[in-house]
């Protein structure tokens, strides 16, 4: 009994320490963002100061981050709109066909996922440049769809596998052809899966840096590229860029609260980091 208590206490201490380790950089950035630089970097650190949201307002409204957010949003939404419907169709077929061909197709999707992105970004850049598509949304969306598609197919497939095949067959007998069975019976049941897949794809596109760095320009710059440019500035800009960084993080935390239940599945299938 006593031993068990001791073990629990030990575990609690260990987990608390790691949690502190995990959260400190975030809290520190939050503190920087709501303080004037002069307070933020006093030694010893001052904790209790009147918070200011001046920098938060300034970065989004005064420094054009709202526009970058819009770019991020357009690219992420475009990615989802292309990748998820197309991936859903393939995923359905691959959940129902179980032959050597379909299995090797699924495996090759995994292999594709393994390729170093930096190898993919080079031809993308060369091709986009010759098509004069650098600094356009479609180029970036195409790249994000490329990174996304294998993951989308695998994740959606896992949702389709949970829907019993007898439902397809009942639909066939009730008068459906393959498309009608999919559209009328199976797809409505896969809707929660599509929502989850869409959100993961959204997150992937929203987080992307390398491709955005190479393929976007002044008109299409996304938040990660914008904030990376800001981060390097001198001390006086720290509060500003910290405010930006915290702002970029917020949608993700909201996402996480909603989708905790599906997190492990999303991770096991494709991992959120591309």
């Amino acid at each position, binding site marked *: 009994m006593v031993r068990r208590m001791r073990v629990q206490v030990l575990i609690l201490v260990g987990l608390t320490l790691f949690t502190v380790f*995990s959260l*400190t950089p975030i809290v520190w950035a939050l503190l920087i963002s709501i303080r004037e630089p002069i307070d933020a970097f006093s030694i010893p650190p001052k904790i209790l100061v009147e918070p200011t949201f001046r920098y938060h307002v300034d970065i989004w409204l005064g420094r054009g981050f709202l526009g970058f957010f819009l770019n991020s949003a357009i690219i992420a939404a475009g990615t989802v709109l292309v990748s998820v419907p197309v991936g859903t169709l393939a995923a359905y*077929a691959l959940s129902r066909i179980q032959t050597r061909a379909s299995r090797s197709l699924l495996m090759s999707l995994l292999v594709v996922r393994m390729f*170093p*992105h930096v190898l993919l970004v080079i031809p993308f850049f060369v*091709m986009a440049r010759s098509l004069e598509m650098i600094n356009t949304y479609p180029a970036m969306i195409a790249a994000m769809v490329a990174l996304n598609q294998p993951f989308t197919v695998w994740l959606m497939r896992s949702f389709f596998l949970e829907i019993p095949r007898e439902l397809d067959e009942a639909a066939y007998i009730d008068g459906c052809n*393959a498309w009608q069975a999919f559209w009328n019976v199976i797809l409505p049941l896969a809707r929660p899966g599509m929502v989850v897949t869409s959100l993961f794809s959204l997150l992937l596109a929203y987080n992307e840096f390398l491709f955005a760095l190479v393929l976007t320009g002044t008109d299409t710059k996304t938040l990660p590229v914008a904030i990376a440019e800001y981060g390097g500035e001198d001390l006086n800009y720290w509060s500003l860029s910290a405010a930006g960084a915290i702002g970029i*993080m917020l949608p993700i935390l909201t996402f996480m609260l909603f989708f905790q239940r599906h997190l492990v599945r999303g991770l096991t299938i494709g991992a959120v*980091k591309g």
Partner: protein
Amino acid sequence: MASTHRRSRLDRRRSLWPFVVPSALIIISVQIYPLAYALYLSFTDFYLGAASSNFIGLQNYVSLLAQDRVWSALRVTLSLVVVSILIEFVLGLLLALALYKLVRGAKLFSTLMFVPYLITPVVAALFLRWVFASRWGLADALIASMNIFPPDWLGAPSWAFVTLVVADIWQFTPFIMLILFAGLQGINPSLLEAGRIDGASGARLVWHVILPALRPQILFVLAIRLMDAFRTFDSIYVLTGGGPGTATETMTLYTYMLAFKQLEVGRASAMGVLTLLVVTGLILMVISVVYRRDKGAF
């Protein structure tokens, strides 16, 4: 005798394969084709801005393999990958076991610890930058307040390496933790009971019962982490940019520099292909190690 499969409209495969076509077209045009193109580029002297390019065979590869910078990048990459993943794995496993053992509150802890993994990588790297920045960073502030002279986290070669490892650990340990924790929850409790009855306890139970049962999850996290660690770009770009000098320049980073700073697209493609070869080799190695089935224990 009729063949095993006669063609039939009833064959579900016939009606379902068309569903795959759009996805296949997309994958071919935005994945396969670009990769093939990159492979082609790696055999040319393509230079951004030059009017034309020539096929030069293996010359890019030959000259790359002769560069110290490439070997140094390989060394940096491998040590970064191996050191980070080792620490992350041990930490992640300990945390997963701790969460598993914890009577209440596992959900809260795992959620909080998981945050760094989900944050946009660039933002995560910036967060760490503000911790490790010289003089004004949190780390320095804390160390200085104890009257110790803080190291130059990002400016000294070995400390820059340490910082990158810490950054990787900070972001990716949660991933390993969560997958292994999910795996632990899937282990049949009677398996653990049986182990306990056999007199195994603590570390022995972990080694002889839990680790073997977690083999699929372990293989998965190691393979995924290997792939991802190899292509880590965002955090290194933001934190050290490969510096000081090229002290923390990885293969990915060097590929990027070649292509987009030196505009040597052909050579950069060759570098990317080399990276791919190394990753593939390593992953095959992990798979063969983890699937050493002849061993009774892990």
